[in-house]
């Protein structure tokens, strides 16, 4: 049997040693031999111990040792994989444990000594705990001081105390003559001792170990007093203590809160638990493969959360094996108890088995979110010297007791509680396994897709993301570096707001986030290829390149013209909705996002925001153009009269126009007096229908994130307050589409940023919008508006508009487009500048629209 365990662990070590090479897609065998160090340490320790127990304990239980040494070896290798430093320490502790094992094996009257001096052991344990109050330390430097430091090694006295307490309880109960068990004489003393130890631990804030003690005590009381009803005390006490603790201890409150709602606070307290569940989900049925997963994303994976580390890399098959091995140990342990010759041996074996079972239940249940998290170790597997040595000694005790079997079986009545406890643990382990299966399988996709899952950042280093091109052919984003250290590099940093960043700490934005499926290799590739990559390397295949409709020359010109002004420019093809340029200022540089993160977050001018798509600006006097159609439809007309008439009507706007040196009329310039005139005389039903058709109340279907659309205004609202139109919030890209519909004879196209992607077969596959153009205005009406807004010299139309952001900051709008005399591609533009700058807006608009002539 031991041979199979050795073979299993050898394969585990060998698979781990190949992991680095596999991740790098190495063609030749790349062996990282360090994993054979813990394997050899384990092998030597195990073989020496095995030789000795074969000689000394020939009649021992045949399962306990292979099962426990297997779990220990699995733990050592997993710890080494997570942290070679701690792995080395754990290997040393394993040798120390083997030393203690052999020492105890050669002590002939061990069981007798334990029983006789039970009070000494108890006192020793309590003194050790007491010492932590005086000279306790925490290896991490802060937090609960539960450890004692001896020559750079840390000992957690609560671990041996568990075993010492079991020895004391077994010894004490074995001394009581059963038929005369009296609550006062036989139970009360133990109650005091357990209560005292519990209080010490509560004072230490080691609540996990304290609740373990209490549960263990009740289980032992159940079998010694033969009262099955006592089992109900555990859940009852748990609820009671949980409620009291909830209000008395902050630790308990946060633990219970995150247990009830692990997904509410995933960036704070519940991070660990959320990551643990994601790790189990990433593992799935067979795991990512040893060394190929990212179990380090779960904090403290080496000790408290080693179960999830195994779950990620060995999958449900691995965790089920761990659960089965633990269950095997527990069931055999209880069987040893039933068959034991002496009462002390029986109680001791039962106590040890119950201790393994309870502790495993506590921590695995906590890892999987079934129970509130208690920081106890997973027996044999977790990193921790005191725990490992204690467990190894406990195994030795079980083995010794198993050799002293009684000729007669325990009477039926006496053995019933043991069967009960064993049955309960079988059910608990089955439940845990079922929940584990649910997380790993039906719930897997949901867990992997969660925003809290950072595994893509690891994939990006080993399997390149797709690159991003401009329509004009230039590479906007490229992948640099070697396998294992691939990095995204943005060649046009000014486009960062659109292209986005992908940083393990700060997440993903822009196209990197919205086109994740394509650039990360999840979409556009065949199922077989994905499956093959994930099976062999636990990585998605290389991502697909995508091409944007951006024209780099136009884009650069737009950025240049906008300069240091806050605002956005969107230039589109009026017919197809293809976005030729999209500028948003202030901008940031995606290549230096990590260095500048704090500064970027502190800035008040929101440089990370893509103002072109996510900017939400009041419509203001652009309402002129938008309402003009409905004005005509509702058979109204308006006349501003002569310049003198207008001066009398709106002297402020008149002066503003004069200052801007503009030759525009008040309608084109966007005077608010004109807006008021138009809005007040238009039919609300027509106006509402037009605003809806222009797409002001619906988010544009774009490949990147857009602002929330304004809620639709009802006809009644418009009737009551027609001027409310001016405070509808719209984004520049929405206004570009309004401009496009006027330019495109009243047909509104859908905006289109991503042109195509490069298929694995080697051709560009178009990625058009899946929406046809919408009729907004009649062709004649569109022409009439163009005519009203026609420029004097160029074959373009435009209007400027004005608004106040939050009733205080000035905003200048510009929308415009080419007119039918234009012979090339029809263009439309929207500009928003967060200052009062109509001249600048007109300059940018007129330049970009005329530039495209030569294009």
């Amino acid at each position, binding site marked *: *049997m031991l041979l*199979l*365990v050795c*073979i*299993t662990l050898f*394969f*585990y070590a*060998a*698979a781990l040693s*190949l*992991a680095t*090479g*596999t991740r790098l*897609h*190495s*063609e*030749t*065998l*790349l062996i990282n031999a360090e994993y054979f160090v813990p394997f050899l340490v384990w092998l030597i320790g195990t073989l020496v111990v095995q030789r000795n127990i074969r000689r000394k304990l020939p009649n021992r239980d045949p*399962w306990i040792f*292979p*099962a426990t040494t*297997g779990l220990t070896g699995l733990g050592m290798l997993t710890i080494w994989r997570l942290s070679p430093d701690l792995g080395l320490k754990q290997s040393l502790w394993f040798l120390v444990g083997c030393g203690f094992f052999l020492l105890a094996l050669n002590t002939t009257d061990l069981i007798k000594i334990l029983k006789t001096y039970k009070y000494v052991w108890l006192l020793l344990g309590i003194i050790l705990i007491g010492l932590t109050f005086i000279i306790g330390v925490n290896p991490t430097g802060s937090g609960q001081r539960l450890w004692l430091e001896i020559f750079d090694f840390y000992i957690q006295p609560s671990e041996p105390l568990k075993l010492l307490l079991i020895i004391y309880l077994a010894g004490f109960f074995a001394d009581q003559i059963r038929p005369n068990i009296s609550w006062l004489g036989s139970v009360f003393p133990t109650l005091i001792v357990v209560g005292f130890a519990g209080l010490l631990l509560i004072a230490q804030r080691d609540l996990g170990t304290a609740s373990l003690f209490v549960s263990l005590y009740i289980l032992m009381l159940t079998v010694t007093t033969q009262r099955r009803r006592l089992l109900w005390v555990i859940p009852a006490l748990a609820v009671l203590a949980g409620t009291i603790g909830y209000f008395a201890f902050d630790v308990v409150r946060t633990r219970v809160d995150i247990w009830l709602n692990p997904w509410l606070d995933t960036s704070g307290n519940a991070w660990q638990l959320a990551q643990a569940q994601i790790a189990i989900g990433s593992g799935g049925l*067979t*795991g990512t*493969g*040893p060394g*190929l997963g990212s179990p380090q994303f779960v904090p403290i994976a080496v000790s408290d959360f080693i179960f999830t580390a195994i779950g990620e890399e*060995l999958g449900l*098959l*691995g965790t089920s*094996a761990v659960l*089965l*091995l633990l269950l*095997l140990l527990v*069931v055999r342990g209880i069987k040893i108890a039933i068959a034991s010759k002496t009462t002390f041996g029986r109680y001791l074996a039962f106590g040890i088995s119950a201790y393994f079972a309870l502790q495993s239940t506590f921590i695995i249940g906590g890892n999987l979110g079934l129970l509130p998290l208690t920081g106890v170790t997973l027996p044999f597997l977790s990193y921790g010297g005191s725990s490992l040595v204690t467990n190894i000694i406990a195994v030795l005790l079980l083995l010794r007791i198993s050799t002293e079997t009684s000729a*007669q*079986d325990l*009477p*039926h009545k006496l*053995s019933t509680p043991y069967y009960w406890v064993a049955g309960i643990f079988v059910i608990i382990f089955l439940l845990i396994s079922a929940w584990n299966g649910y997380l790993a399988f039906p719930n897997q996709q949901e867990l992997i897709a969660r925003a809290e899952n950072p595994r893509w950042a690891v994939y990006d280093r080993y399997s390149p993301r797709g690159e991003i091109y401009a329509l004009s052919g230039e590479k906007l984003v490229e992948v640099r570096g070697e396998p294992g250290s691939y990095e995204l590099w943005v060649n046009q940093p000014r486009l960062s707001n659109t292209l986005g960043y992908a940083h393990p700490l700060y997440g993903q934005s822009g196209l990197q986030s919205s086109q994740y499926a394509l650039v990360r290799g999840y979409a556009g590739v065949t199922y077989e290829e994905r499956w093959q990559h994930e*099976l*062999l*390397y636990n990585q998605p295949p290389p991502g697909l390149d995508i091409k944007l409709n951006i024209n780099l020359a136009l884009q650069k010109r737009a950025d240049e013209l906008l300069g240091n002004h806050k605002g956005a420019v969107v230039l589109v093809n009026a017919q197809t909705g293809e976005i030729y340029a999209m500028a948003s200022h202030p901008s940031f540089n995606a290549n230096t996002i990590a260095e500048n993160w704090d500064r970027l977050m502190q800035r008040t001018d929101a440089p990370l925001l893509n103002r072109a798509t996510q900017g939400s600006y009041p419509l203001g006097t652009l309402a002129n153009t938008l309402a003009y159609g409905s004005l005509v439809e509702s058979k109204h007309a308006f006349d501003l009269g002569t310049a003198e008439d207008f001066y009398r009507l709106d002297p402020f706007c008149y002066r503003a126009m004069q200052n801007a040196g503009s030759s525009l009329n008040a309608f084109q310039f966007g005077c608010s007096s004109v807006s008021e005139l138009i809005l007040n005389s238009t039919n609300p039903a027509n106006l509402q229908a037009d605003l809806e058709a222009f797409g002001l109340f619906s988010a544009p279907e774009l490949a990147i994130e857009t602002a929330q659309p304004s809620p639709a205004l009802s006809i009644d609202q418009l009737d009551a307050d027609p001027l409310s139109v001016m405070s509808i919030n719209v984004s520049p890209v929405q206004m570009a589409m309004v401009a496009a519909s006027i330019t495109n004879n009243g047909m509104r196209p859908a905006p289109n940023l991503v042109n195509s992607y490069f298929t694995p077969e080697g051709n560009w596959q178009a990625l058009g919008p899946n929406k046809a153009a919408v009729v907004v205005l009649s062709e004649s009406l569109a022409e009439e508006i163009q005519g009203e807004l026609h420029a004097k010299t160029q074959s373009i139309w435009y209007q400027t508009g004005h608004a106040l952001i939050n009733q205080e900051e000035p905003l200048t709008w510009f929308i415009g487009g080419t007119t039918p005399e234009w012979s090339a591609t029809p263009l439309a533009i929207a500009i928003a500048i967060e200052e009062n700058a109509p001249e600048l807006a007109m300059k940018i608009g007129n330049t970009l629209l005329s530039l495209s002539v030569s294009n």
Partner: protein
Amino acid sequence: MNAITGLVLRTLLFISLYAFLGTAVWLLWKSVTGSRLRGGTIAIPTLTLATTIDGEQNIQTFTSSDVLVGRNPDCDLVLDDETVSGRHGRLTYHLNQWWYEDLKSTNGSWLDDLKIEEPIVVKDNDSIYCGDAVFKIYIKPLQ
């Protein structure tokens, strides 16, 4: 190459891991069912029951695990006495012990002075009173 070798190793890892667990579960199962079978056939200590009715000694030896006691002729141990019910009591062997239980007889069963209300464990040299009849139990321990 590297990845394929890794995959093969992973597969072998699971095979040997579950080979171990499978063997463990199988052997455990066999030991559980095996001991139950043994309990039913081989490992029963021989039960000898001695009755004295009308001064006549009657000694019977049983190797089965279930012995029915009563006045009915189809009982394993027939006690021909008016105070004995048709199916008076039963001796069964389980959990390595012989147990006697009263089958709701009219006049009850007694172990010396103790009225037998629920199944009790009987040992060598015990006497069971069924009404006015009595039988003595001899159990030959297993070798």
